[in-house]
């Protein structure tokens, strides 16, 4: 268990200065994610252009891991198609549950690879991605990690 592996510089940086933070009131898709155990709440707005994620922003409150994960995700999926986002989801999910990280595919998202060593924190890192899935699927009910 190595803390430096969890709180890598990229994670700390994205927590201190989250990218794409805020709301997109005119966006076509909105979703809410909750992690009831720690009280994390994530609001996600996604602007789709046909099949492409034109823009997205997130807001809410959460720990460093959930904030950095949402920030990294927002950079990674902006401009991607829904199918590409779904592929990334699978790659992130694999990495968080202990599969060897596919760095070429994950890029900066590979900074979250240390989370797999901290089972209690996997939910924090995956909240943004589950919320994105819900937004893309058009789910109205809030997502929960429980």
């Amino acid at each position, binding site marked *: *268990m190595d*803390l430096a592996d969890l*709180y890598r510089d990229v994670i700390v940086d994205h927590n201190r200065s989250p990218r794409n933070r805020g709301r997109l009131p005119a966006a076509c898709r909105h979703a809410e994610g909750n992690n009831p155990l*720690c009280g994390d709440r994530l609001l996600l707005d996604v602007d789709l252009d046909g099949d492409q994620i034109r823009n997205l922003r997130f807001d809410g409150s959460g720990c*460093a*891991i959930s904030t950095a994960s949402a920030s990294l995700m927002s950079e990674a999926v902006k401009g991607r198609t829904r199918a590409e986002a779904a592929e990334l989801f699978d790659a992130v999910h694999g990495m968080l549950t202990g599969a060897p990280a596919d760095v070429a595919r994950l890029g900066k998202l590979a900074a979250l690879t240390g989370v797999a060593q901290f089972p209690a*924190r996997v939910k924090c890192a995956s909240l943004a991605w589950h919320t994105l899935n819900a937004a893309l699927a058009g789910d109205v009910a809030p997502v929960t990690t429980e």
Partner: protein
Amino acid sequence: MVAARETALPLDLARIRADFPVLSRQVNGHPLVYLDSAASAQQPAAVIDAVAGYARAHHANVHRGVHTLSQEATALYEGARERVRRFVNAASVAEIVFVRGATEAINLVAQSFGRPQFAAGDEIVVTRLEHHSNIVPWQLLAAETGARVRVVPINGRGVVDFEAYLGLLGPRTRLVALAHVSNALGTVLPVAAFVAAARERGIATVIDGAQAAPHLPVDVQAIGCDFYAFSAHKMYGPTGIGVLYAREALLAAMPPWQGGGDMILTVSFEGSTWNHLPHRFEAGTPNIGGAVGLGAAIDYLGGVGAARIAAHEQDLLEYATARLAGIPGLTLVGTAPDKSSLVSFTVEGVHPHDLGTVLDSRGIAVRTGHHCAMPVMEHFGVPATTRASFGLYNTRAEVDALHAALGDAIRMLR
């Protein structure tokens, strides 16, 4: 005289710590610093051995067999009940019902005392600082009966507003349910005063004593309450066993809550008759080993001495409060003048969950989250706090370890 001499003698902490086997283990390469006793306290060897000793030599079902083991198990189980009676100063063992824990005790009162009697428009008064276990059973009862739950506010320090409480006691108030000690804030409520005001108006009273039993002397006759609930695992006993104290006159009038063996005198298809108190409320084979462990925990606490435990824990509280006040950006949540030995806090720019992970990497166990008291979090406008709660085995050096690790976490994350 005895009490004064007892207080003057400090705890022999090295000896106390040696009584708790888990305290000698390492966590993540560091000596364990266990600051989560308010969630569940560790068990001394005396408790562990009592439970194991029962299983090794005396286990059988209680109140049934004529054979030796059954008689021994019954004697141990009922012996534990008598210890509990003395521990809370109840008038009779008929008033001591063994349950799974404080949560089950409160649900029992809601379902057996409240449900048959309460009607639409009746009111149940709780405070804002209650644990979910002293909110949700009343909400369920309200949904079933049409009664209404009313909430006494707390102030910015986490103190319950007594004047507002008096204002809420009206002609439709049937029951008041309040914590003796807040699990999220540490606030100690002057429960005797709250109970007296309710009793003057003929209102029933339920005290959630889960956080009080390990720290304060509990005297149900001095408090004057009708019901008092607590859990063994908060007071150095096993999980899965707790107590409902219930005033005998009320308990005698309450219908059974669960049906089964042990709670009946006779059963026939024309109708059954109910067992005497308190067995009427203990359907099925009880947690005999758990009760034995609770009895051992009570003996252990008595051996150390309530006054000495309280003095030691208050010293830790004062020391921790002063140490943490020196950390920039740290805000204590819950600063009641009369407080149990815990510190709940937020740190600007650092989420409690991250703090919890960093502290765990140093072997320090704290609780992070909403502490099953979401209305308290809402009151203070925070999603979660970090809580370090102290037990009789904690030391000033452990507070120093917490202080140092908090500094490291802030440097790493802020």
